[in-house]
């Protein structure tokens, strides 16, 4: 932001690093979308392949397909998204910026030592 900001200089990404992160994240995203799409497609498609899927009776009177569309898919979406978000964040943390040493105030070599304290 402002060139005089002492913190801004410490947080800087080079184009090569960003490009690497971008490609890794793209793999993460494409992988998760593939899982997402195959499950969403499988749920209605299984009904034509497997009678048990749409006509079987699980606990009480729901068919596996009914249970899947009524609860399972939402849980699945949530899990896929949580996994993707966690993985993407972890990838970004490891591939951009330094290792998390700024959180350690006892560290005598920490770059934060030079930072002005209010």
């Amino acid at each position, binding site marked *: 932001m402002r060139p005089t900001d002492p913190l801004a200089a410490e947080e800087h990404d080079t184009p090569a690093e960003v490009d690497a992160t971008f490609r890794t994240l793209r793999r993460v995203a494409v992988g998760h979308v593939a899982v997402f799409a195959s499950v969403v497609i499988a749920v209605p498609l299984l*009904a034509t392949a497997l009678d048990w899927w749409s006509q079987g009776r699980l606990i009480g009177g729901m068919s596996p397909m009914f249970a899947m569309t009524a609860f399972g898919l939402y849980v699945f*979406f949530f899990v896929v998204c949580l996994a993707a978000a966690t993985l993407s964040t972890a990838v970004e943390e490891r591939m951009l910026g330094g290792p998390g040493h700024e959180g350690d105030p006892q560290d005598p070599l920490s770059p934060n030592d030079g930072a002005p304290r209010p």
Partner: protein
Amino acid sequence: MTASIVLLAVLLVAIGSVAVFIRPQRSSTFEFYLAGRRIGVVTNACAICGDYLSAASFLGVAAAVYASGLDGMWYATGFAAGFVPVLLFVAAPMRRFGEFSIPDFLGRRLESHSVRITSVVIVQLVILAYLVPQAVASGITWELFFGYGLAGLSPYATGVLLSTAAIMLMVALGGMRGTTWTQAMQFLLLLAIFVWLAIVAVGAGFDYPQAVRELSEQPLANPEQVEGRWQLEPVTNQLAPDTPAYFGEPGGQYGQLGQFALIVSLAMGTAGLPHVMNRYFTSPTGTAARMTTVWVLGLAGLFYVLAVLLGTAARSMIRDMSGDVAWLDALTTNGILRVPEHALMVLGQIFGGRAGLGLIATGALIAVLSTIAGLLLASASSWGHDIYERHINPNATQRQALWAGRLAVAVVAVLSAVLALGVRPESLAGQFPSIVATMVTWAFVLAGSALTPVFVLAIWWRRTTGPGAAAGMVTGAVVAVTMCAAGVVLDGAGYGELLLTPTLVSAPCAAAVTVAVSLVTRPPQHLSTIWVRLHGTAADRHTVKLARLTRTGLGQRKGGHR
């Protein structure tokens, strides 16, 4: 009955206290559009849900499940699934690039004014396509519950005009910070209504699996008007026309292709909805935007699970009670409601009497109003910021820009009201299962065909160029509109299902055109700077570090005084 009212009161008090707790403060253009970018992840997630859940979700999902069972759930699935691509492809980079609105984002990313103008047009089209059914819905609701018009207007027109006026006032006076908070509150209220209904239904002896079994024992049949008399007509099984359709099995509404076409249309559409995407610009960091989406999925998932449950509960309980409760006779045929959209309201009246009915109706109006508010705000920011500040009056003061935005709100709201008045719902009602849900789907189709493919390519493919994106958006929009129009004209003949939800075809067309045109044109000049801004986390880390320093600084100062 008393117990259920007490429960309701407790829920409402809980929401009220949350509302006071996260109450906002306000001012300036920046604040008006983006609420200062420091909005808690959960609050923002609730606000996104409030924007997102319209009448189509509140009444439509339960109604669709009520009418066609398993196949009715695909709406809910598609609405929820839409956030998965948002999270995977759009949320974090969009926030990191950090512009005001979708046209601004595309314009800066592709360094092209033509893209900005094209996307303003598309965004306005999407907003209108979304606004009109909301106005229609409020008109219908007014018509059902009050049944009389004001100042010589028809009841339908009164509903449309009143809701539009109320919203215009709200956005113009409150700004977005106000609406972020109101949106969050509105979502919590809707969720509370569903939780209340579900708890009361289960308390009254509703057993979900058992109900599904009982409902699936006999073929699905819904009331239809045959020669002036209401009678139950069996529902055609779209998957196998010679066998009957059942509540708990697929086929009640869609054929094989139709299912996919609908899910894809809804799932792709969310990433291109301007009022939802604008909320992402208010997250403090890209990572927060990502976590917001996870929360949105959790909350929306819960909401839709309850909606589906209530649809089933309505079908099962209204059938069981139709013999005992006299006022149901006017609405039902052999225990089945004639208008599926009434399902939740009837449930409300069964459990909460007149108050319950009023509550559900209020919920429906809230869903409509919150969505309209989000849409008008998105519209205001794209007119005021992308057109007025950038092209008409580059030296505009904040005050002028603010007023330009407010003027745009008024114009768009009036336009949508006029269009809603032009649509005579009774003329279309026979054609589609739920006019509101279908029209909302068209907004999703337009967004998913024209905006989503271009977003994904612009964010994840370096070679995307301005002309490519503009061509792709135009192609997507034209293909989508043409196919929808063909679908309406041909009325479901042959590939009618695909024609009415054409994202499956139009989105790949848009993507192909974008790629083809991009390959023969030159990518933006400052691509590597753009890329660092779009995918780098330096600004995020800086923000986090500043926040941490501020906090420790404050902590130290506090410690020093002691």
